[in-house]
Structures are given as C-alpha cells and as structure tokens.
C-alpha cells in the first residue's frame, strides 16, 4: 500500500460529497444531476479499489467492475429517459415534469 488506506478513503469521501453537492444543487437540470450520480459512483469505486489494495485480494476490483457495468446500464437508461422527456416538453428542467398523466 503506497499511501495509508485512510487517505484513499478521505479522497473518496471528498469526491462523494462533491457529487452529492452537484446532485442537490443542480436540481433544475437533469443532465447535471446525472453527472453528480456519476461522480458519486466513482467515489464508491475508488473506495472499493482502495480496500482491495489494502487487504491484498481481488474482490474489491471485481466489485469495481460490477459497479462500472451497472453504471453503464443506468446511464443508457437514464439518457434514453432524458431524450424521451425532452421530446415531450422540449426542456431538461426537472421542474417542468410535475404531472403523471397527459
């Protein structure tokens, strides 16, 4: 381990809180909300890889790969939803999508 595990976890926590701040602050823009989710998932991957390096086995890296696969599925669906919503209302402002029917 080149640096203490706590430093890796602190970096991961900083990135996670930045992503959380992005998600909460840009509530009016769906694209920026998705970017915030990406940043948070990257922080989780960093924590897994750091733990894998700290304890010297490959399981953390495998979960990092699973998170990457899950994220690609999530992003493809979420962007398809963004395109669908933009086709209906011509905007990506999440305040515009406040009705169930229509």
């Amino acid at each position, binding site marked *: *381990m*080149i*640096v*203490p*595990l706590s*430093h*890796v*976890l*602190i*970096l991961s*926590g*900083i*990135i996670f*809180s*930045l992503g*959380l*701040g*992005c*998600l*909460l*602050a*840009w*509530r009016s*823009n769906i*694209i*920026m909300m998705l*970017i915030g989710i*990406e*940043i948070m998932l990257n922080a989780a*991957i*960093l924590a897994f*890889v750091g733990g*894998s390096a*700290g*304890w*010297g*086995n*490959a*399981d*953390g*890296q*495998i979960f*990092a*790969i*699973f998170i*990457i*696969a*899950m*994220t*690609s*599925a999530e*992003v493809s669906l979420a*962007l*398809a*939803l*963004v*395109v669908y919503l*933009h086709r209906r209302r011509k905007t*990506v*402002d999440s305040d515009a999508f406040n009705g169930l029917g229509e």
Partner: protein
Amino acid sequence: MEQIIFYILALVVVVATLFAITERHPVHAIVYLATSFFGLAVIFYLLAAPLAAVFEVIIYAGAIMVLFLFVIMMLDLGHPERMKRPGFRDWWPALALCIIIAGSFASLAVSPVHEAYAAPVPTGIRDFAHTLFRNYGIAVEIVSFQLLFALVGALYLGRRK
C-alpha cells in the same frame, strides 16, 4: 515517489471535479469530468489495480462520457445562457450535507488508527478472472441480464411513435 504522484493526482481529481460541478456549460463540465476520470484511473493503477484502471478509461471516459456528449449535442443543450444557474436556495442543502460529511471525515482523521495491511500485489488478469468466474459467477449472470434489460428499456423509450 508513488506517494507524491498519488497526492498530485488526488489534487487534480478534486479540482477537476470541482470545476465540473460549477461549470454552466454542460460540454465543458463533461470535459472536466473526463479529466477527473483519467486522474482516477491512474490512481487505480497506483493502487495495484491495472484492470480497473483500464476499464475506467475505456468505459467511463470512453463510452459513458461520449454518450453524455452525444445526448447533449443531440438535444442542443450547449447554450449556457438559457440554463438556470442554481441560486443560494438550491445550494444550501448541498453545503449543509457536505459540511456534515466533512465533519465526520475530520473526526475519522483525528482518531488514531493502527494500520497493518498486506504488501500490494498487483492483481493480474489471471487471478482476477479466477476470482470473478469462480466466486462471483452468479453476479456476472445478473449483471449481463441487467445490461440486456437496459438495452430493451432504452430501445422502448427511444422508439418513435
């Protein structure tokens, strides 16, 4: 040497992420985010996970960011003057939660921790595949189903009436 590179890359990642979340132009935000992901990939390499680093570059910086760029350009969202900037009313819950998280990390950092970890052994693709398909075979199946469902869902949502 590796320690210095790690801290420099950590700084690069945090600054690039900070620029990405405060940038009004979505395309600029995506480019900053790709920079942050490249830095994170090199950090993974330093943490003895070359395979995770490679997947980070190929899938995150290569595929997902390009997908974001594609959607932004297809929907013509690259006009920052038309975008609402979040005001203080939008920022304060995020700031409050970030201060709480920072406080918990500060309390973690000052508490004494005795760390005795194994020496880093770079995981080769042989060990990796061994662990992946022997211990987590069912998870591989579940993830492949999930990707299939995402494909079907994206096709359903993207169809034209």
